[in-house]
């Protein structure tokens, strides 16, 4: 890992009443990398996302983007400082069209409606939603809504994109198309990606670095090859058959 990281977490804690959701989590995300955050259900992955994106405030610890602390900042301020996110359970704006959903994201960077619409259209084309752009959100399929979440997050022009299980429920061919999109994005725009994912094929194919979370703690980090052989990861999450 080189130079200053884009995102860094240092000793981050979060408790929900008696439950320790995140315990002493520290990691760095290098600029331009694709990093996966994996772990069994309830490991605290989405909580980590919510802490980074400002939907939750850590009880202790430091979260910084390019060295500037994000702790205590509002979600919209964090978005504007360069972090775009998707939601595990899709949360589109239901009273708006596909295109308008993405335009809201684009309007984080411009006040001009025409510019926002152009930018939204480019992203919809990129995510293969161009022909659905005038559709009401309720009328599109779940995989399309997942892609819409990605387009809306990308429209805010993030430096860091947080993807929360965007491959879940997709067919293998659709996963391959999504992988292609993220690789292209990463290569052309240099956007850093942190993804939560259960689809191991996607994780192994896409990420250069993996962070494994279990009971709110980081139990392993390393390259996909290293993580796959890690004893604790095999015991708690992947299982012996992954070998």
């Amino acid at each position: 890992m080189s130079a200053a990281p884009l995102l860094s977490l240092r000793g981050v804690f979060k408790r929900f009443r008696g439950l320790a959701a995140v315990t002493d989590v520290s990691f760095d995300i290098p600029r331009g990398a694709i990093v996966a955050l994996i772990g069994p259900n309830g490991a605290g992955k989405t909580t980590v996302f919510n802490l980074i994106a400002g939907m939750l405030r850590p009880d202790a610890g430091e979260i910084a983007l390019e060295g500037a602390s994000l702790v205590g900042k509002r979600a919209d301020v964090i978005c504007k400082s360069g972090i775009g996110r998707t939601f595990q359970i899709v949360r589109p704006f239901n009273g708006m069209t596909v295109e308008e959903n993405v335009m809201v994201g684009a309007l984080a960077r411009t006040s001009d409606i025409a510019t926002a619409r152009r930018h939204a259209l480019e992203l919809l084309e990129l995510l293969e939603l161009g022909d659905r752009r005038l559709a009401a959100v309720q009328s599109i399929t779940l995989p399309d809504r997942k892609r819409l979440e990605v387009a809306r997050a990308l429209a805010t022009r993030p430096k860091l994109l947080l993807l929360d299980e965007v491959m879940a429920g997709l067919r293998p061919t659709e996963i391959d198309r999504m992988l292609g999109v993220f690789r292209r994005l990463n290569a052309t725009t240099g956007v850093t990606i942190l993804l939560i994912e259960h689809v191991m094929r996607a994780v192994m194919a896409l990420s250069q670095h993996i962070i494994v979370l279990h009971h709110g703690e980081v139990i392993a980090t390393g390259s996909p090859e290293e993580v796959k052989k890690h004893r604790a990861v095999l015991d708690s999450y992947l299982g012996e058959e992954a070998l």
Partner: protein
Amino acid sequence: MMGSPYSLPRRAKAALAIIAAVLVLAPLVTNNYIISVLTMSLYYAYVGQAWNIMFGFAGLLSLGHALFIGIGSYASAALFVHFGIGPWAGIFLAVPLAVAVGCFIGFLGFRFAISGVYFALLTIAFAEFTRIIFDHVAWLGATEGLFLPVSSRTRIDLPNLRGPSEMFYYVILTLTFLALGICRWLMNSKLGYCWRAIRDDPEAAAATGVDVFWCRMAAVAVSCAASGVAGVWYAFYYNNLFPEIAFDIGKSVELTFAPIVGGVGSLCGPIVGAFLLYPLGELITGATQGLGIEGIKQFGWGIAVVSIVLLRPSGVWPWLAQILLPDRRCHAAAP
């Protein structure tokens, strides 16, 4: 043209021009009674639009909107009665006062995360205790009421908004179209997109870079400013103000009917709703007058409103727009 659902196709513009022409020429061919019905329809269309900015656009339910109208009424009336200051100058006190009170309620609500029906309760509470305070302010007439002097009902004195009913008709007609234009402009602006995003999902909106607090305050400010103007017009049209009427909760609820029946969140909904409901009330009054049964009008009107809402739960206008403008590809939001 494609694009925003808030842009009107040519046919809709033509229809709007015809309706505008009919309304402008109406006083020349109709009697005073029709004028008064049209005037009140326009009044409810206007305040319905003001209320719709908060609830329909930004998802903030106010059930105390009579408060902002009442503040506008009392501010302009007090200036006129006590200092002889006319309503056009009075607007500059009425509107900032209504906006200030609205923003105070908004600040309390949004800062302390009081949302949904609890926010609505907050608006009711403020309207109620304002009514009780005004009951005891002798300078504003207290329970005895505040009366505006009427010198002549035939001479048009526009600077002091004194004159015949036609004058009031044209003023509220202008206000209604002005409000429509402003709402259309707002909904095609960044603020309008942010409002709709907040209405649908405030947390997702924030995650997408929308400053939820500021946008909600903006919705409150615009809505209260428009309501304050309505209050000024109302005071000079009726010439008398009583706290138990001006700040009555029934009044706050009544003004939500037109936008709800017409179509919450749509541009034309409040206008369509008002022109449906107010004349309908008058028709029922006319039809039931001879029967001498107390409350029969309210009963008939209530059944009519419930039937409309049951048949067209998302409003009359979105349904009507679909019939009138079938080439629209998107009906997620009717204009």
